[in-house]
C-alpha cells in the first residue's frame, strides 16, 4: 500500500513560483476585493445553515466518526464495493496512478470509437488531467458544469473545488462566450449567459458517446454510486450517453447507505450553504431490460494516486476523511488573499496543502505547508473535523527534517536545508539552557542598537523589531 510512485508530468509546479504567483494576486486590488467578497458570501451562507453551535458540533462529531469508521475498514470495503458493483453490472477498474486511470478511461472510449465525452464536475478527473490526455488521444472532452465549462473555455484550471470559476467576473465570462461560442453577441446579463451555456451543452449531451462523472459517496453494501450536484448536468452525463464512466479516489467509500444522509447534509450545508443540493443521483446499475433510459454500460475507476501513502500513517490518514466541501478554503485567510490558482495544485487551499503532497510528492510541494499562519479557521469549520493545522505541522516536519530511512512520505526531506536546520539547533541550544538564554537575551537588550534595521520579510511592511532596553527579568529584580 505504501509504494511511492513516480511523479507524473504536471502542467503546474506547485511549489516553484508559489510566492511569485501569490504576490501577483495580493498586489491586484481587484482580485483581492473579488475573492474577499466571494468568500464572505460563502461564509455567511454556511453560517446561516448552522445557527446552533451545539447541533453543528454534534453533526461534525458524527461526520468524523462515520469517516473514520469507514477508513478503518477501507481495504475490506473496497472488496465489498467491487463485488456489489460487479453484481449490479457496473464494471470496476483499479488505477494506481493518473496514467493508469487515463489509460483505462481512454481505453473504454476507444473501444466504443468515442469522439466526444461530456463531463460532469469531477475534481479527480482534474487530478489526472483527463482533458489533456483525451485531447492527445483525439477525443473531445467537454465540461458540462457551468463553472467548469467557463474555465475550460478560458483554458484555465478550476480555482476552487466547488466553484471552479469563482475568480471570473461576469464581464470576463461575457467576453469569453462572445469570443468562443459561435454566433453569440456580447452580453453580461447573467441569466442570458447561463442560457447560452445551456444551449451549447444541451446539444452535446445528445451527441456524446461517453458521459463522465465523479462520485461523492460509493456505498459498499449496496454497490451504489452517489453524485451530488446542482445543475442537472451530472444527471445528463450519467443517463444520456450510451456509456457512463465514473471516477473517484479510493477514500470516498462508505459501508452503509445510512452513512450517506449525515455526510450529504454536512457536505451541502458546509459547501454552498444549501439544505440539500438540487440533484442527488444514486447510480446502481446500467440500463436494465425494459428500462427506457440510462447508459448501457457503467464503469467505475478507483484511483489511488498517493492516497494509500496517506492511509498507511495513522495521523496522515485523517487527510482522507475529507468530503470535498471546500469550507476550509472559504474560511482560509490565505486562500482569500491569493485565490486558487496561486497554489498550482489541483486542490487549492488548506485541503490542497495537506492532500497534494501525497499526490505529487514533497519535492514538488515542499514549501506548500509553510503558506499557513496556522490560524485554525480551516480545522474549526471542517465538517469531518480534519485537524488541518496539526497535519500542516506534520508536513513541515516531513519536508524540513533531513532525509531518513523508511520515510512515511515520498520526497521526505525535500525541503531540508542544512543552514536552516543549524539555526534551529542553535536556537534550541540557547533556549534549553537557562545560562545561555540569560546571556543571549542580556546581550540582545544591551546591544539593542545593533539590531538590524532591515529584517528579511518583516520590515517590508513593518517597523523593525527591537528588544526592550530591559528584560522582564531585569524589571522584576529592580522592583523595590
Amino acid at each position, binding site marked *: 500500500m505504501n509504494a511511492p510512485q513516480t511523479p507524473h508530468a504536471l502542467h503546474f509546479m506547485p511549489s516553484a513560483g508559489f510566492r511569485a504567483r501569490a504576490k501577483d494576486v495580493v498586489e491586484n486590488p481587484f482580485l483581492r476585493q473579488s475573492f474577499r467578497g466571494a468568500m464572505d458570501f460563502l461564509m455567511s451562507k454556511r453560517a446561516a445553515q448552522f445557527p446552533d453551535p451545539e447541533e453543528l458540533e454534534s453533526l461534525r462529531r458524527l461526520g468524523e466518526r462515520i469517516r473514520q469508521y469507514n477508513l478503518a475498514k477501507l481495504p475490506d470495503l473496497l472488496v465489498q464495493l467491487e463485488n456489489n458493483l460487479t453484481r449490479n453490472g457496473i464494471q470496476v477498474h483499479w488505477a494506481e496512478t493518473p496514467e493508469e486511470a487515463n489509460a483505462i478511461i481512454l481505453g473504454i472510449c476507444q473501444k466504443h470509437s468515442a469522439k466526444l465525452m461530456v463531463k460532469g464536475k469531477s475534481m479527480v478527473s482534474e487530478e489526472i488531467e483527463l482533458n489533456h490526455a483525451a485531447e492527445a488521444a483525439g477525443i473531445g472532452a467537454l465540461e458540462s458544469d457551468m463553472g467548469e465549462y467557463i474555465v475550460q473555455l478560458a483554458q484555465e484550471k478550476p480555482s476552487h473545488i466547488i466553484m471552479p470559476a469563482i475568480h471570473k467576473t461576469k464581464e470576463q465570462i461575457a467576453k469569453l462566450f462572445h469570443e468562443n461560442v459561435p454566433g453569440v453577441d456580447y452580453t453580461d446579463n447573467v441569466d442570458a449567459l447561463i442560457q447560452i451555456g445551456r444551449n451549447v451543452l444541451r446539444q452535446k449531451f445528445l451527441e456524446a458517446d461517453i458521459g463522465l462523472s465523479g462520485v461523492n459517496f460509493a456505498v459498499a453494501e449496496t454497490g451504489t454510486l452517489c453524485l451530488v450536484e446542482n445543475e442537472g448536468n451530472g444527471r445528463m452525463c450519467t443517463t444520456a450517453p450510451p456509456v457512463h464512466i465514473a471516477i473517484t479516489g479510493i477514500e470516498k467509500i462508505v459501508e452503509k447507505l445510512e452513512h450517506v444522509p449525515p455526510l450529504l447534509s454536512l457536505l451541502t450545508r458546509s459547501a454552498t450553504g444549501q439544505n440539500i443540493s438540487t440533484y442527488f443521483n444514486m447510480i446502481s446499475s446500467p440500463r436494465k431490460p425494459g428500462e427506457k433510459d440510462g447508459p448501457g454500460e457503467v464503469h467505475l475507476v478507483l484511483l489511488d494516486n498517493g492516497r494509500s501513502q496517506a492511509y498507511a500513517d495513522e495521523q496522515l490518514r485523517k487527510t482522507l476523511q475529507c468530503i470535498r466541501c471546500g469550507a476550509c478554503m472559504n474560511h482560509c485567510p490565505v486562500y482569500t*488573499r491569493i485565490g486558487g490558482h496561486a497554489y498550482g495544485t489541483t486542490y487549492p487551499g488548506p485541503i490542497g496543502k495537506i492532500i497534494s503532497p501525497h499526490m505529487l510528492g514533497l519535492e514538488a510541494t515542499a514549501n506548500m505547508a509553510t503558506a499557513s*499562519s496556522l490560524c485554525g479557521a480551516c480545522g474549526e469549520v471542517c465538517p469531518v473535523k480534519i485537524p488541518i493545522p496539526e497535519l500542516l505541522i506534520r508536513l513541515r516536519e516531513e519536508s524540513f527534517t533531513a532525509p531518513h530511512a523508511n520515510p512515511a512520505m515520498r520526497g521526505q526531506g525535500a525541503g531540508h536545508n542544512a543552514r536552516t536546520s543549524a539555526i534551529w539547533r542553535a536556537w534550541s541550544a540557547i533556549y*534549553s539552557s537557562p545560562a545561555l538564554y540569560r546571556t543571549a537575551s542580556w546581550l540582545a537588550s544591551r546591544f539593542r542598537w545593533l539590531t538590524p534595521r532591515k529584517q528579511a520579510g518583516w520590515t517590508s511592511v513593518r*517597523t523593525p523589531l527591537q528588544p526592550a532596553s530591559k528584560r522582564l527579568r531585569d524589571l522584576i529584580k529592580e522592583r523595590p
Partner: protein
Amino acid sequence: MHSRSAYPCDVYFFATCVVDQFFPGAGMDAITLLERQGIRVHFPEEQTCCGQPAYTSGFPDEARKVAALQLTLFPNDWPVVVPSGSCAGMMKHHYPTLFADDPARKAAAEKLSARVYELTQFLVDVLNFKPEDCGSDCTVVLHTSCSARREMGVHVTGRKLIGDLAKVKLAQQDHESECCGFGGTFSVKQPEISAAMVEDKVKALKATGAERVVSADCGCLMNILGHAAWKDQQEGRKTPSLPGEHIATFLLRRTAKENTQ
C-alpha cells in the same frame, strides 16, 4: 480546573520569550494585576520559551528540548499563568503530544497542562476578577489571537473583562475572528501573504475609530502595531494612528485608583 471557591494564594508566571524581551512592561503589569488580587506571583528565573517557534516550523526535536526545560520549572501544584493565548495553547495542548514517546515527560506534561491558564482566562474563570473602571470614557477594539480563540477558547474572557469596564466602549471590527497574519515564521516565510493579512487587519481596526487596540497576545501586537507604525512612517504621521497595548497594561491603568484621567 481550579474551582472558584479554591482561591489560589500562589501562582507561577510564565512570561514567554516575546514578553521577556520585547514587551517587559506588559509582563510587569500582568504580575502587578495578579498581585493586586492578593496573589503571590512566582517567576522561575530559568524560564525561556515554550518551544512553539520550532514546533510549528516543523522542528519537533528542537522544540522538545526547549519544552523539556520548562517542564522542570513548576514543581508546586500552583496554577501557571501565561500572558499569551498562543504560548498557553502550546503548553496546554501540544506538550502532551510532543512528549508522546517519553512516558515520564508525558506524565509531567499532562500534569502541567491541567494547570496552565491564559491570563484573561485566569482572571475571569479562576479569580472571578471584576475590574472597577477608574478611567474616563474611551473606545477600544480588542484583537484576539487565533490560538486564544480556537485553541484555548478564551476569546470570551478578554471580552468580558473589557465589558466589565463601565466607561470603556468595545468597538467591533470587521472580520474580527480573522488572523492578523503573524503566524510566527509564517510572517517571514510568506511575507507577501502575511503583509496582505496584516494590512487588512489594521485597516479594519482603524475603521472602528477606536482610540487603541488591545490584545492578550504580544505576537499579534508586534505584527499589528509594527505595520501600523510602518504605515504612519510611510504617510508621514508623527503620532501613531493606531496605538495599542497588552490587555494587562490596559486593565491595570483603567483600574488604578490614582487614575484621574
